[in-house]
């Protein structure tokens, strides 16, 4: 009897064990049941106080069809208006036939007015979600957010990818934006006095929400473009920096190592690129006021010179001097401008917080002490790269 029992029962137990597994498939969702979100736009309706969210969902067949050039829409934008960020997924379920799939989104675009009010609840919502992305690029826009979201861009089919790629090129070539302008970098400084700069974009006025735009040869039309930086303290935007200031700000933070500069010597224009910029900061406390000594070292590359001068040691020295002087001036100007607006652009307050030792105790308590910082700037630079020309054509 035991033999028969054993023969019957072992398979039974095994079958039961398997049935645990086979009743599964709770989290299953096929790829073509997903609305792959590429870009998210957030705004607040000033009248109702509700949040407005735009989801830009990818249309896979549209993308593939585009490769075969029969111009179908690569993305669709959906708009929702709700009082809390968590309500959007529910709202989305009401109109999208597919499950919202935000794992792959490339960019968050936030309207300027919302950014100025503060983004804490959006940050918290995003960080709490299991499929959230915090290494996503954040953009602030001056343009109406509906226009940003309802724009087809040339070259890249996905607007989100397009602005992300644009942004990713900047640290390497122009220094107009930092690699560390992602959501997580803003998040990390939510409690510290440090400022962060987030890229500011604008959409060309002539944009149309129609896929026919993709047939137009004029690339500028209706494109998204980088226009500067939005300055963030904690979770809110406190001001706007133009491109030049963003470059300088990022250089001083050590996040940008290359900047492009135009110098004027004797009324002649001169384009150079400062490469491999190394900034050394030394903060000391003297009689209760912080002293910041900045030592900036850099290699210069001569892109274009129109001085009508031969290249020799003397010219080089002049270029070096001019650059040193101009950079020093700009930094001092940036500092002054920041002081007048209440922005600690040199990050002195953050440095103070990171100092150890008892002499810094008072300084740490005084939130405004950075305003009294004495600035000492030393710029050391050398022209290293000249291009392929030994002497410029003079045309004489």
């Amino acid at each position, binding site marked *: 009897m035991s033999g028969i029992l054993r023969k019957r029962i072992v398979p039974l137990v095994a079958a039961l064990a398997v049935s645990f597994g086979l009743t599964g498939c*709770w989290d299953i969702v096929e790829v073509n049941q997903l609305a792959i979100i590429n870009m998210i736009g957030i705004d607040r309706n000033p009248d109702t106080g509700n949040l407005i969210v735009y989801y830009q969902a990818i249309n896979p067949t549209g993308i593939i069809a585009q490769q075969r050039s029969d111009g179908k829409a690569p993305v669709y934008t959906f708009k929702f208006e709700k009082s809390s960020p968590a309500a959007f997924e529910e709202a989305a379920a009401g109109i999208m036939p597919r499950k919202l799939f935000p794992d792959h989104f490339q960019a968050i675009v936030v309207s300027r007015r919302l950014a100025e009010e503060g983004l804490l609840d959006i940050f918290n919502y995003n*960080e709490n979600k*299991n499929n959230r992305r*915090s*290494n996503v690029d954040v953009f602030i826009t001056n343009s109406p957010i509906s226009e940003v979201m309802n724009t087809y861009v040339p070259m890249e089919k996905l607007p989100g990818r397009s602005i992300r790629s644009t942004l990713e090129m900047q640290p390497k070539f122009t220094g107009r934006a930092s690699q560390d302008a992602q959501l997580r970098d803003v998040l990390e400084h939510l*409690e510290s006095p440090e400022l962060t700069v987030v890229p500011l974009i604008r959409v060309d006025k002539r944009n149309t929400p129609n896929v026919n735009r993709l047939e137009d040869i004029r690339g500028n039309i209706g494109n998204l473009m980088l226009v500067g930086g939005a300055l963030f303290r904690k979770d809110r935007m406190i001001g706007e920096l133009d491109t030049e200031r963003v470059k300088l700000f990022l250089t001083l933070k050590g996040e940008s190592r290359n900047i492009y500069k135009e110098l004027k010597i004797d009324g002649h224009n001169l384009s150079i690129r400062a490469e491999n910029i190394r900034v050394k900061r030394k903060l000391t406390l003297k009689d209760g006021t912080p002293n910041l000594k900045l030592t900036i070292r850099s290699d210069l590359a001569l892109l274009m010179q129109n001085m009508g001068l031969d290249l020799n040691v003397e010219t080089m020295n002049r270029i070096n001097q001019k650059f040193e002087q101009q950079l020093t001036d700009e930094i001092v100007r940036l500092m002054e401008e920041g002081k007048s607006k209440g922005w600690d652009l040199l990050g002195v307050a953050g440095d103070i917080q990171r*100092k150890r030792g008892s002499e810094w105790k008072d300084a740490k308590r005084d939130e405004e002490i950075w305003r009294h910082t004495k600035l000492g700037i030393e710029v050391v630079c050398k022209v290293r790269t000249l291009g392929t020309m030994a002497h410029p054509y003079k045309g004489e």
Partner: protein
Amino acid sequence: MERATISQWQFFIITLNFTLGTTFFIRPGVLIATAKQDAWIVPWWVGAAGLATAWMWLNLYRLHPGRSIIQICTSTAGKAVGGFFALLYAFFFIQITAWVTRNLGDFMKTTLMPETPISVFHLMFLVIAAYAACKGVETIARVNESLTLLLGFTFVMVVLFSLTEWEWKRFEPALQMDFWKTVKDTRSLYGFPYMEMISLAMLFPYVKGNPGKSLLPGIAAATGLLSLIIFFTIGILGVYRASHLIYPLYIIAEELRAAPFIEHVEAAIAVVWLSSLFLKLSIAFYCSTIALCDLFGLKNRSRIALPLVFLVSGLAITIMENNVVNAQWDMRYTFTYFSLFGVVFPVVLLVWTGVRNRFIPGHKEGAS
């Protein structure tokens, strides 16, 4: 019972995995929240305390060679009192198993598969752990050996690829903590994972040679690795974010970008790391099984493995409501509760043995 033996190296690996198993998922966030940028130092002193305690267990074992902690209880303090102690220990081991199971379920549910019922994760892992437990300690040791390599490899890769985010600034200002306050606030680390290691006292009899030779280095290595993990978490993620997250290491994996096309690989990495949880679970489960076998004098481990799966999977659901409640409980009670098993009982047993050896003749050789 089986005559199985495991080598020193295998026991070292087991110790390492048992200490780090769930710890490296759960502890860094809590520790960073308490000790801020100096959190990486915390494991050092707690580890030292853990080593001292483990040394005491080894002394107890030296007085009772070839006996598991359960057998030490019953042989020292007799059937009634010792049996009660042993029962408490068995209960404790089962509870640890349930805890590890629940940690796994919580992790899976909050990060990877929110729709799946939590019991599925529990049952799947428990069944495999039970299978491993039936196969015996040698099998578990070998599984440990083969998986540790893989785990180490993924961990190193993740850290290497995340180093682009590294900033030394995040450690400043260094050494600012209020030492005694931090010691007090991080005392639960002493309970979990260090006191939990009393489970390994069930395995001492199987180790070839002196188990201390691999237990103590194992604890030391685990402490070093824990400190290293916290160090990397601070350097990569920053104190502020790490202290606000439940699974900071998972977030590192999530934000990893090895190449423009290798992104969002957290699911794959998390799954590999889950095997570390499995190793801990299988060791804990095995310890509870043989604890019950030793306690009740059973011949065959595999007979109770399946009922134990049934019991533990139930306990894992009821053992805590959610992470928040658990975190609060952990802060307040872990130290006290775990020390009861890790320190108080062993000391009682040690004293008892000492007294008996001195005053009752014929008991010089422990109880052979």
